């Protein structure tokens, strides 16, 4: 059990750009932290630096309060599960499980006990005498997990451990991992590019892009309050719809309020003070609305109250998914996806109006693409 602390940790290869750019990350004892990002964003490199199989170019890494920058992997008391499983092909499952313990001069009866315990827990007992080549993908995955578990390490590291499994097995193993985390209560750091894994497994999610940390927060926090357009697009399937509209100020009976609009769309920006948005007047703003916040049909109330936004467009495609229907609408050249109920009466090619609540609107700075915090 341990905390893991990264203080402006960077990694560079030769003279190239930084693969990991001053990452600050603090992982609490017993926390399940997910590093999420597209491939090449530096999340795996970060994990490998924590493991000690990649050197740290600058910054400081501590595990359980001890600076371990120059401590070799074997003395960090961590275990790692690899995407390729990395099982030793010349050893049986039992030997694979025991390999790490033998090096640590754990007494033999103790090794046997732990191997038995873990293999029972993961249902590996029937395969102990087999070589990895005689196992299925799911079984190999469990051996890889077991190999980490017998070590009873301070920190577990996972490098995309589920991406080589087929869909059904992935869901099972995901649940298995969550269960093991609850049971062991150990600190776990989990690297993935799969947002579903990030949402379902993590206590917190650390979203990375281009070597930098973009946002850290609980899964729902990151989903509902993305720090910038990258996070907004990366989390959520379909990704958040982004529109570019000029901001303006309108006056009505309730006072001044801001909106972003053109002839095909009007987005009320009632969550922000007009004063905050004053510098943006006349500029193209980036507006974000999640697909599930869009409804088919014109707003029932009048827009003058500023409660509801709308946009006109033409239906490009309809994707019935059974429980829900995705409707792709092309609005003034921007593709917008709406996630609707299972019965949609509209047809492809039809002109439609989509409406949404003002509370569902996200606003991003057009230059920095960072979110402008809501104020009401």
């Amino acid at each position, binding site marked *: 059990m341990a905390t893991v602390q990264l203080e402006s940790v960077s990694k560079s290869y030769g003279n190239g750009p930084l693969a990991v750019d001053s990452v600050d990350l603090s992982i609490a004892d017993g926390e399940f932290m997910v590093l999420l990002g597209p491939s090449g964003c530096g999340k795996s490199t970060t994990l490998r630096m924590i493991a000690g199989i990649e050197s740290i170019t600058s910054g400081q890494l501590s595990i359980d309060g001890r600076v371990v920058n120059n401590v070799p*992997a*074997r003395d960090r008391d961590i275990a790692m599960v690899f995407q390729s*499983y990395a099982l030793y092909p010349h050893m049986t499952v039992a030997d694979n499980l025991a390999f790490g313990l033998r090096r640590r001069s754990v007494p033999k009866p103790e090794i046997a006990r732990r191997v038995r315990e873990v293999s029972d827990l993961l249902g590996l007992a029937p395969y102990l005498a087999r070589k990895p080549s005689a196992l299925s993908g799911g079984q190999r995955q469990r051996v890889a997990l077991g190999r980490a578990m017998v070590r009873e390490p301070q920190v577990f590291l996972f490098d995309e451990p589920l991406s080589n499994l087929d869909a059904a097995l992935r869901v099972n193993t995901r649940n298995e991992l969550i269960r093991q985390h609850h049971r062991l209560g150990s600190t776990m750091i989990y690297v993935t590019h799969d947002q579903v894994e990030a949402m379902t497994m993590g206590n917190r999610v650390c979203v990375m892009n281009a070597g930098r940390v973009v946002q850290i927060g609980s899964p729902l926090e990151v989903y509902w309050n993305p720090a910038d357009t990258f996070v907004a697009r990366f989390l959520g399937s379909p990704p958040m719809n982004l529109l570019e509209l000029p901001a303006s100020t309108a006056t009505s009976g309730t006072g001044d309020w801001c909106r972003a609009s053109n002839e095909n769309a009007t987005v009320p920006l009632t969550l922000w003070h007009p004063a905050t948005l004053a510098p943006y007047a006349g500029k193209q703003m980036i507006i974000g609305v999640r697909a599930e916040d869009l409804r088919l049909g014109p707003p029932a109330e009048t827009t003058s109250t500023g409660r509801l936004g709308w946009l006109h467009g033409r239906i490009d495609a309809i994707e019935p998914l059974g429980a829900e229907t995705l409707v792709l609408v092309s609005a003034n050249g921007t593709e917008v996806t709406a996630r609707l109920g299972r019965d949609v009466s509209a047809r492809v090619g039809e002109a439609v109006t989509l409406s949404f609540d003002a509370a569902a609107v996200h606003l991003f700075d057009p230059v920095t693409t960072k979110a402008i915090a809501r104020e009401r």
Partner: protein
Amino acid sequence: MVSRALGRGGLMAILVAYTAFAGFPFLWVGTMSLRTTTEIAYNHYGWPSPAHWAKFRAAWIDSAFNTYFTNSATVVIGSVAVITLVGAAAAHCLARYRFRGNRLVYFILFSSIILPPQIVLIAVYQTLVEYNLYDTLWGLGLVYVSLQLPLTIYLLEGFFARIPQDLFDAAKVDGYGDFEIFFRLVLPVGMPAIATTVILNFILLWNEFLFAVVLISDDELRTLPVGIQRFMGDHFQDIGMIATGVMISVLPVIVVYAFFSEKLIQGMTAGAVK
């Protein structure tokens, strides 16, 4: 249809003819090894009846083939063992570690594969004389190691480089150091490739002649190829006994071939199939 059958027949004829061509010389020596020189002089292509198995005993003991055989076995097994260990260590180092000059070392070793060994023959002879290693099996073994080391490293590097990096990372996280990883991971996982190079080196060195003839002059230390050649020089007329000696020298190779023909062919062609 007729032409097809004819073509088929022609093909079969070629196959049979070539098989006879490839195999006859060896089988012929096999028959002669069991016949006395007098019998052979009477008819060179007769069947051995009766088969004189005692000739093998005679060649083994009286004609000192046991000494030659022991010398060959000692020097070949010893040098193959050293080549394998030293070569595997170097190949692992070149395949796995990043360091300045890695590719330069690789290129130099790789280039020396093409060098004809007789270029260094004279200087090797001088050097061994100076270090009192001339006319010793130690000296010959050392030369044998240097002869086969570059090719061994080249072949093993290619294989080791294909072992996934994740395995090494896993072993490191599991607590293993550089040398433990080499002995407990690289060697076992690389066994197929190592077996290939062992076979290749064994055959090539078992048959080596040039350095054996230059670096060994004591009859007690001669290896089989030189032993046979000298025996033939001394007993040019004794065809029967020469044939027996030839069979003794070929037998280990044939026995290995009988059991591991596929692996052996793979080993021999390892340098060419890539």
